[in-house]
């Protein structure tokens, strides 16, 4: 079961860029993608900043080459998954057993919420084409059809840890010899449903979020998609360019504490990080950088930092939350942050967290607050924790 799994391609779209290169440039230049809501039609547009992808649905449809009636979630997902597949140089010329494992929390809710006012007024009202992609699986199905993936298609939905779990499933299917290539990650469009849900939970920040700062007030929502192409060792050898990294560790655990809140001692996140480290065979001291879940809520950051202390003691690796750039992209965050982590390893750099004045972890230099070049980065831990206590951690290692 310990056959290596390689990452051969990356794809990303978020509030800080339409592809991986644009995303990385924004991370390097310290440019956040958080601003007043422009594309989503909501009464809260001037209250809560968000990390919207800076394109209308019409513009996204044109980039996809689609008709314009699809869910924004499907379009974002397709663009990132397509970029990842192209980046890996996998074009269908070799008949690899290929899977698409996507993750989403909203699915086609962005369209359903336009259908609902008409439907509530009159049960025969509303256009049915606005609910054909309501189901999470229907969004993945649309992406799979456009990518021409037919061997295996699935969808994971475990709230904010969804795409980390999609990546885990992909890796396990390769290790179990069921697939050769898996496009794995997640996608979520901003919707009124999620925006209002998080507002009702009173965990949205009306200012720009400050993950892992003592002054943190809550999170900003974002949207986007992040996908990576996982391949077996045999496929990695076949491909024309070297793979980026290996996925050496992963674990999924449940906090079993509360439907939405994290436990004070960070049980779930502790177990996820511990499990991933054990699988990788690495010592805690081998981890060079942690891409934090770091949402910016009081609760997450306290719980996550406690769990990190339990794992790493006083020898803390450097860490940051890139949600200070993108906002919290929910089911997409594990995919996007996997892309960011792997780029950081490729470029041998550390990605910053923005707007930290009084870090939660006060030891000098632990919280990365500016882009730092020329750092040896061999192993990166990426955390994704979600509602329902779902906690997952991934470890990426240099080849």
């Amino acid at each position, binding site marked *: 079961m310990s056959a290596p799994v390689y990452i051969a391609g990356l794809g990303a779209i978020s509030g800080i860029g339409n592809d991986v290169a644009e995303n990385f440039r924004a991370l390097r230049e310290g440019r956040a993608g958080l601003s007043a809501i422009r594309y989503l039609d909501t009464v809260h547009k001037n209250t809560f900043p968000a990390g919207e992808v800076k394109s209308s649905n019409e513009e996204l449809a044109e980039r996809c080459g689609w008709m314009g009636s699809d869910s924004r979630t499907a379009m974002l997902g397709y663009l990132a998954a397509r970029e990842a597949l192209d980046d890996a140089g996998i074009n269908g010329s070799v008949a690899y057993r290929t899977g698409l494992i996507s993750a989403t929390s909203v699915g086609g809710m962005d369209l359903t919420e336009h259908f609902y006012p008409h439907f509530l007024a009159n049960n025969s009202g509303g256009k049915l084409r606005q609910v054909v992609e309501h*189901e*999470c699986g229907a969004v993945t199905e649309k992406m799979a059809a456009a990518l021409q993936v037919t061997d295996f298609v699935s969808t994971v939905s475990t*709230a904010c840890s969804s795409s980390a*779990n999609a990546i885990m499933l992909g890796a396990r299917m390769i290790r179990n010899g069921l697939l050769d290539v898996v496009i794995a990650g997640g996608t979520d469009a901003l919707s009124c*449903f999620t925006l*209002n849900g998080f507002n009702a939970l009173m965990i949205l920040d009306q200012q720009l979020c400050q993950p892992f700062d003592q002054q943190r007030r809550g999170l900003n929502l974002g949207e986007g998609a992040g996908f990576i192409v996982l391949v077996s060792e045999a496929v990695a050898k076949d491909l024309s360019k070297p793979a980026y990294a290996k996925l050496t560790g992963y674990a999924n655990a449940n906090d*079993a504490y509360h439907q939405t809140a994290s436990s004070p001692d960070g049980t779930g996140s502790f177990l996820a990080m511990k499990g991933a480290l054990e699988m990788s065979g690495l010592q805690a001291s081998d981890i060079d950088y942690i891409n934090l879940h770091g949402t910016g809520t009081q609760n997450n950051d306290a719980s996550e930092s406690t769990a990190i202390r339990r794992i790493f003691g006083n020898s803390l690796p450097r860490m940051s939350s890139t949600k200070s750039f993108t906002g919290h992209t929910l089911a997409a965050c594990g995919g996007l942050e996997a892309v960011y982590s792997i780029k950081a390893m490729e470029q041998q750099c550390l990605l910053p967290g923005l707007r930290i004045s009084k870090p939660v972890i006060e030891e000098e230099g632990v919280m990365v607050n500016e882009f730092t070049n020329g750092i040896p980065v061999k192993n990166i831990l990426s955390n994704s924790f*979600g509602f329902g206590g779902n906690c997952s951690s991934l470890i990426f290692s240099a080849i």
Partner: protein
Amino acid sequence: MFITAASAISPQKSFRNADGFTAVPLTGGNRLLCSEPDYSSLIEPKLIRRMSRIIRMGVATAIDALQQAGVTDPSAIITGTAYGCLEDTGIFLKRMVENKEEMLTPTAFIQSTHNTVGAQIALMLKCNSYNNTYVHRALSFETALLDTMMLLKENGTSQVLVGAADELTDQSFIILERFGLFRKQPAGEGAAFFVAKASPDAAIAEVKGIRTLINPGTQQVEDAVKTLLQTHGLGADDVQLLLSGRTADTAMDQYYNVVEQTIGNEAAVIQFKALCGEYPTSTSFALWLACITMQGKTMPGMTDASHVRYAVIYNADKSGYHSIMLISKC
């Protein structure tokens, strides 16, 4: 993969029905609603009141399966649901529209996320183990089973709680009916959970293999059924029971015809959706039926199941997803 316990809530009186069941007359027209049991011996009444139907049906079948198997801390909790928590989703959407995005309470939103059933089970059990939820249409339950099989291979001592749940709400029924889905077949819903492990002791049935296909041709389906049987040293005549997803809707008839011809004349054919209605995770109810058959219990259409050694479940969903499962007696 060996099943040591199975529990289902369905439109039939299936829950904790030790002696098998006879079909209850289905009175719901083209909408079959679950026959819900008294939950009070399984879930605290205070908790039940807060749970939507999908959550309480999912949690109750999960707890029941664990109690049957004598497992208190499963190594994993894996759930399949195609539609997720529709009741809470509908409630939050309605309030959001009516209140124009102001003055909303979070409860329905919190319970609307697709992983709520699996999360509530973990919370009740205080179970920190692996927990995952698959939401891929008519393969949601099959993917949960596939994950289970891999977990059992990765760790031979695991005991995995795996199941599926889907609910039909007033709103979802109207919308799906507008798509024409229930013109010839009744809409259904249900929850079923199983305890699975790698070793055969105390098992009631074995899931020997699962094949899933996306938009296949009939030849591919036939080949897949034959290969699945051959892989386990079986021929078409060795199967005594075919649990078929066929309904009065003829759209997928060509596939069901092929599978019925392939499995031969020996097998009794039970159309399980006549009992549970049409819904994307209905194969979980079919697996429950297969499990009780392997225990020698009766079900409508099969008064004596003692001769059933091998069963095949075949489902061809109109959205293009096909699944084939081979089940054997232990």
